[in-house]
């Protein structure tokens, strides 16, 4: 069970209070009515599904009710930071966004090195 820092409550709280809300920083196209089918499919269906550093949204649904953003490593499930909704995507100090594979699960699950 994850422990998640809510940037509004300014506190670490149990995952039980939160709802995951998908990849972050996917803006709804301004003139959405006019985009092409391809652009719509991209906007609505395609997600990065990163292995490694990912930007995602959570909602503190059973807390302050706010949506916010988080940077998390999807291999270790470690949170690198969380920040309020509406703030721009921020680099995580010391982690390159292009570095896809931080570590593989085989290495994190008790295997010998």
């Amino acid at each position, binding site marked *: 069970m994850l422990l998640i820092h809510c940037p509004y409550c300014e506190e670490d709280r149990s995952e039980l209070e939160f709802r995951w809300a998908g990849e972050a920083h996917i803006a709804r196209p301004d003139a*959405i009515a006019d985009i092409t089918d391809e652009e719509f499919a991209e906007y609505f269906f395609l997600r990065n599904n990163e292995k490694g550093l990912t930007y995602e949204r959570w909602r503190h649904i059973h807390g302050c009710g706010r949506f916010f953003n988080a940077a998390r490593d999807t291999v270790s499930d470690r949170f690198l930071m969380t920040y309020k909704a509406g703030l721009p995507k921020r680099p995580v100090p010391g982690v390159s966004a292009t570095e896809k594979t931080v570590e593989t699960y085989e290495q994190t699950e008790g295997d010998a090195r």
Partner: protein
Amino acid sequence: MSGSSHGSAKNLGAFRLKGAGRLTPARTSRFTFDGKSYTAMEGDTVASALLAHGVHLVGRSFKYHRPRGILSAGPEEPNALLDVARDSARRQPNVRATVQEVFDGAKISSQNRWPSLAFDVGSVNNLLSPFFPAGFYYKTFKWPREAWEKVYEPIIRRAAGLGVAPKEEDPDRYANRFAHCDVLIAGAGLAGLTAALSAAATGAEVILVDEQPQVGGALHFETSTTVDGKNGFDWAQETAAKLAAMPNVRILTRTTVFGYYNHGFLGLAERVSDHLDRPGRETPRERLWQVRAKRVILATGAIERHMVFANNDRPGIMLASAARTFLNHYGVAVGRNVGVYTAHDSAYEAAFDLKRAGVSIAAIVDCREQPGEAVLAEARALGITVLTGHSVIDTTGRLRIKSMTVARNGNMDIRKMAVDALIVSAGWTPSVHLFSQSRGKLRWDEASQRFLPDIYAQDCVSVGACNGTDETDLLVDEAISAGGGAASVNAERRFGWSGGMIGAAEGAGPDTRVKAFVDFQHDVTAKDIRLAVREGMHSIEHIKRFTTNGMASDQGKLSNMHGLAIAAEMLDRPIPQVGLTTFRAPYTPVTYGTLVAHSRGELFDPARKTPMHDLEAAEGAEFEDVGNWKRAWYFPKRGEDMASAVNRECRTVRDVAGVFDASTLGKIEVVGPDAAQFLNLLYTNAWDTLKPGRCRYGIMTREDGFVYDDGVVGRLAEDRFHVTTTTGGAPRVLHHMEDYLQTEFPHLKVWLTSTTEQWAVIAVQGPKAREIIQPFVEGLDISNEAFPHMSVAECAVMGVPARLFRMSFTGELGFEVNVPADYGPAVWTAIWERAKSMGACLYGTETMHVLRAEKGYIIVGQDTDGTVTPDDAGLGWAVSKKKTDFVGIRGLKRPDLVRDGRKQLVGLLTNRPSDVLEEGAQIVADPNQPKPMTMLGHVTSAYWSENCGRSIAMALVAGGRSRIGQTLYVPMKDRTIAVEVTDTVFFDKEGGRIHG
């Protein structure tokens, strides 16, 4: 305990040594094992009590049904799995005899044997074992094809399995507790206790956990360790008492840390009352602790391994530390003439203790040439024969070991030595389970032949034996520094420990047919592992799954390292390259009931009831589950079945009126100057044109354009809307709205509040609806002119502030009276009394469904399914053509959503009016086509309509609206029903009644 009544006749067991151990005979208890009665002392485990009475044979193995005894004195026990019962409902299979404490009256039985433990028919498997090597089933049982399912599999199934599952519902209670701490310490041996002293001194909140009834860990058996000048075990108890007195320390004994999950979260299972003679009725049996710890100190110790040699599994063969525990803690000798077979110094100490207690030691057989000097010297001093460079290569004895066969390594000279017990040690495996579960990475320590914690993934540290720290003074230093504070602990151990081996021992080497067991419970032998490698299973994960090594209920606590070493030898690869299998929770098996804790019965899932629930129940309502809600389904009168009740309700509503509880409908109050603009974006309809005091039916789609929810929205004021949603949709609709409001349209000045439960909603529908409610409504003209269809107003009803809607889901004149929930029952009662006197009825969801279907109104989720657009559902009119944006505007225009031939909602009339279609029935154009048939769609709603005097149905049919007038077919199992495609309105097509 009740034992004292057994008086002086108490037989505490022939193997119970006077003056040995820490149990006192003051309190005893009785239990039965396979029907025979025994006496135990307070503090005995089932294992120690049985051994006290000389009982070694306690079970049969899984595959070969080999006789098995007690191998260990702890949770790693693979053999001694018993069925323990308090009464017929409180029966528990697969209980480790070495963990279960005896309680008075326990009925204990052996498992996996028939007809009896001593004579088990299943043991022919042992003779047939050459035919059952690892993975044999993959190679055979394939012909004839059906025989696997009909013959072979049932036989295999009956032979497999261990205990018998309980047959009755478990009456016991279980509890849950969430807890937080600064430091959680797993394990209260010397290392854990020392770390706790140090951590507690800093003022930190400390939780110290140990799965044994008492703290002390290895100090239970280690007589040669003194701490602060005291016997180690005594020091441990005193330390625990000191810690327990501190306000910032909580000690949980009989509590297993079974899982170390993400972000400092650990699962603990506390055995609260399984050891009690007569637990209180309300005492939980077990308690789940879900702990979030800032820091974790792992002090889980090490587990002794057995030696892998031919016939190493006979009853009477056990771990040296176990024999020592039985002697030093329980005062029980495991035999009178004990052999020792070891690769590690620690077993010598077991021999010393036994010898001093008067047990004769046949010999210490040490496969090493050079054991530790200190232990050798002591053995000599005690007059114990030590055979270094020798191995035990076989044993005899059917139900209990009789002799061991000893050979000089590499030499064929053998001698047989009579023994009645053989204690073994291949060394110690650090318990790194929790460390690994926390995703820490291990490293292989070549010198000591063990995996040790290396890189930590969480805020955690390992101390003591689980960290490979052998020297007592180093251990203490390490534990103090892990605790982060200070403590003064002086521990000394008389003998240094060295040695250890992993893999098959002498005589079980390559090329042998002998059964040298690696995994006792699953009957995995050294040769099985070699066979797996020969068959191309080169990954340790394949070897595990092919042989099932380590997959039994002990999860390889004893066997994994041996299996790994044998595989590595076969593969000619260094051990770290072969790797380990993954450690997974739980550390030891955890009762489902404990994990479920409170979530059973009424606490399994909240049953939501409306304010009028009890009144409806009193009127005889049958209820149905809709999401979490209990909704009144229909109100049968005496002697009525469902159909006749529903028919009566349907008729009465249209002839007179009906009263319906609509409280479960979701309600969201949308408030703020931009409320209309917000709703414009969230619904397909336009809302800025809606005047205060009016309502409108709205459809919500998501970006994909499919119908997501619907409901009537009333505008109370310029800046205040009362939005209703479907019963099941309420939470997700609010979440969806919040999502858009907070992330896409944060500039809008509007707020959302759930008011579902603020209002009790009483719908009154039918020609007499107005007349019924009229006298209760204050301050509002509800005449047709002043308050037409689709109006809303705030007023008072029976002196209570109310929101009154003129709306209808039945096609009749209708009102929905919203009053603050606590007033619901009183208002309901008053309205119902008046309605009843006028000939109206109460009706439930079933009648509501029929009436709305007569009018062709849809139910989202029944007539639509997440693939239906508003247009498909015949609601194209509700999609604004003028708006330049709303959620779904683009999705709706995708090629497949606008193509011809989409499924559209239509009506169906069966050729025979009395035929009611089955909801979910499929529709075809040609019923005589071969299978697989081309299906055009399916029936979404179908009812007997009392008001139409015939059956009616709605269906989603490909190109449906263009087929109106056509005959289609509904092929059922026994016959085919012809249907005519119609529009969806079956009753009052002109729609006049609603304005009545």
